[in-house]
């Protein structure tokens, strides 16, 4: 019986050591994440003026300012990758720690990318931008998709502001992009989870953008139409 007790104690002692080690890993990750939170916040703030940038020049500046933070993101993600690298197969054990942040990071990167090129940032491009190697520390594909869904929200706001600033081309671009994105999402078989919910939100943003496009079009503000006299309100 005594020997039995010892064996048990020994085992629990070992578990304690291993679980404490795992706790230490979480601490380390948390430290990185709180820095990541800071960078995200600053980058987001730097990007916000894009909504009221009046000249292409100032828009460019805002974009460049926002892009300057990508290096910091890379640095933090490489720190995460380093923590995980020595624990192969345990990526998802700690995934919860950076899941939300990754959503926002994907959103920021993809939004910047869209402002630059009017195109969609692909999953592998996200990984390249963040400087992570897929075999080591991949960006979870569902996280990538949730991040994309967040773009639509921002874009619907962006459209309103661009039109207010007199850019009547913007709604057309955005609506083409969003409806493309929407139809692309419909290719996927989604489960009833967060991603599904986010995707369901996408159509409302699309609708809003289409309404703006409609407003602009019906008033003949689009450039390819013979402009009737503008409405005076």
């Amino acid at each position, binding site marked *: *019986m005594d020997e*039995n*007790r010892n*064996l*048990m*104690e020994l*085992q*629990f*002692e070992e*578990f*304690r050591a*291993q*679980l*404490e080690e*795992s*706790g230490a890993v*979480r601490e380390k990750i948390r430290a990185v994440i709180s820095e990541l939170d800071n960078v995200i916040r600053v980058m987001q703030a730097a990007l916000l003026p894009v909504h009221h940038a009046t000249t292409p020049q100032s828009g460019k500046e805002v974009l460049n300012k926002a892009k300057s933070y990508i290096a910091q993101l890379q640095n933090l993600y490489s720190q995460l990758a380093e923590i995980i690298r020595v624990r*192969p*197969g*345990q*990526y*998802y*054990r700690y*995934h919860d720690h950076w899941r939300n942040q990754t959503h926002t990071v994907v959103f920021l990167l993809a939004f910047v990318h869209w402002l630059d090129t009017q195109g*969609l940032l*692909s*999953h*592998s491009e996200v990984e390249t931008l963040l400087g992570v190697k*897929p075999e080591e520390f991949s960006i979870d*594909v*569902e996280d990538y*998709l949730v991040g994309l869904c967040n773009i639509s929200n921002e874009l619907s706001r962006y459209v309103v502001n661009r039109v207010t600033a007199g850019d009547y081309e913007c709604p057309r671009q955005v609506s083409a992009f969003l*409806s*493309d*994105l*929407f*139809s*692309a*999402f*419909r*290719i*996927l*078989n*989604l*489960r009833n989870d967060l991603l599904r919910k986010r995707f369901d939100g996408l*159509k409302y943003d699309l*609708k809003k953008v289409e309404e703006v496009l409609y407003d602009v079009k019906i008033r003949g503000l689009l450039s390819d139409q013979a402009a009737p006299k503008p409405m005076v309100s």
Partner: protein
Amino acid sequence: MEDTRLKERKKKHEKMELQEEVVGGRVFGKKPRTAVGMGLAQTSSQGMNPLHTNFQEIGRELDLMNEKRERLVKASRDVTIHSKKVIFAVHRISGLNKAATLEQAQRDLNAVRSNQVTRLAREMQGNDYWKFRRAFSPGMQEFVEAAATVEFAKTGRLLTLAELNRSFLHIKDAANKPFEVSIPDYILGVGDLTGELMRLAVSGIAAGQPEAAISVCNLIRGLYEGFSMLPSLQENLRDWKTKSDTMFQSLMKVETACYNVHVRGSEYPPEMLAGDFEYSRDDHS
């Protein structure tokens, strides 16, 4: 209103997709990320909007993932069902049929290991254990519980994680590595064990074997002491808390039972306690 408009849009898009497929000739896109062509390759990724090509690939990835999760949930459920049967078999043990019942339980347990657990293990490789853990963890916990119950009935001691994983040596995962149960799954399984042990102890007392109750009591006490020194399981915080509580409840019950036997039992000679009970039970049946 909005619905119909959306529907129209959808229709328009489907049409556009079709047209694009027919008209476009350029090949966009890149090689699939998951190079394992699971026979799900879509008809044509040519001539489509690169965005759609991208998403088709992602869709394939998601489908594979969800299918795997479903299979794991099923496998886990099967492991649970069969493990439960093993545990019940152990509970049916009484004096006379002990050896035979125990042997049968052990055989059933081995069958669960080589059938259901092997099926579960074969699905996994690399990141999968932690990624899908929520899908199959209940089954693994139940298996740990069953294996530990059988071990206790045989030897009166706790099955260690090392021993358990040794019994999995011949079970390979998809990457051909031996399957291993993680510490949290083991701990949660053993946490359930105390409930079973408590039942064994109480029915042992009822069958006139107070020594069995005392050995159970010692084991649960050891477990409880061991558990108290562990940091809480971050992976299953809620499970962890409820299990620690139940464990304490079970310990209290067994301790009270032992106390009762000790105090009241001293009023009778032990043979009488047991004999009396056996006799009266036979009488009733």
